[in-house]
């Protein structure tokens, strides 16, 4: 294998590697259902390897949770019901995209709060500076007159 082959391979692996979801098995014949199944799996966290979704994880628990999702879909449950099933057992942490609640409210509000505090400080600073400059102007103006 030449260096060039290696580099081409490496580039392909880097570009396409992300598309390699572990769960390549087709759970549903219907492409719409299969897309829904894959989307739900990507929304749920694997509790064993916490920075992976159950779609990406090879952990046995992730396989069990995918089976639960598949069976609940087959039983005609809605997305909200499936999500609630997981939350009832594993808490909000199971959602890969966290919801806003009482405990993490500050985290969600932090950007807006910090922007508000920052602009408050900036406005006060600029006002004071302007006032000082005005005084300087007034003094120098008075001196000239």
């Amino acid at each position, binding site marked *: 294998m030449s260096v060039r082959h290696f580099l081409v391979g490496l580039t392909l692996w880097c570009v396409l590697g992300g598309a390699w979801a572990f769960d390549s098995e087709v759970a549903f014949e219907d492409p719409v259902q299969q897309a829904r199944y894959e989307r739900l799996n990507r929304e749920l966290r694997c509790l064993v390897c916490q920075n992976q979704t159950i779609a990406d994880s090879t952990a*046995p*628990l992730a396989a*069990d*949770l995918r089976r639960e999702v598949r069976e609940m879909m087959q039983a005609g449950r809605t997305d909200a019901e499936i999500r609630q099933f997981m939350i009832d*057992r594993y*808490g909000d*942490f199971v959602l890969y995209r966290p919801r806003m609640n009482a405990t993490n409210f500050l985290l969600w509000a932090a950007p807006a709060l910090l922007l508000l505090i920052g602009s408050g400080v900036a406005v006060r600073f600029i006002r004071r500076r302007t006032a000082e400059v005005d005084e300087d102007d007034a003094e120098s103006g008075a001196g000239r007159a």
Partner: protein
Amino acid sequence: MWRYALPLALFVLLAVALRIGLERDPSIVPSPLIGRPAPALSLPSLQDPSYLIGTAELRGAPWLLNVWATWCVGCRQEHEVLLQIAAQNVIPLIGLNWKDDNAGARRWLAELGNPYAAVAEDREGRVAIDWGVYGAPETFLIGADGTVLYKHVAPMTLEIWRTEFLPRIELARRTAGLGG
């Protein structure tokens, strides 16, 4: 002087909060089950599959549920502690054998000793999901009325048994009118 007091106070507050954050183990997921009724359990016994182990029969007194498997390193680590706890005869210890092979699990108990009053076999891991199990070993304390009172994730130690479990068991027994 005072113009530095507020930023300094904010900095100290942030530093303390981050220090506390460092101490916490992010792999421990708090269980939403605490304070709620224990999920129903009805599974064949590991030793005698014709015999069903159910939560209904366990009502009336506090009990422990320990999730284990032969593939779980932490379970081997805590096994000696479980044997010691069982020898104290404080509370019935029920095992949940999670996604394991039956023969291997029975051999494990024969070789290492059996601390369990009964072992339920959850071959497919469905009951474990109902209980929000994500990593063995896990130990639940269930009250006499069937409420989940406490959950410990990670191998049991005598220290944790003494500080976290014994006081809660005593309280659970007292609230159930079973005496200290």
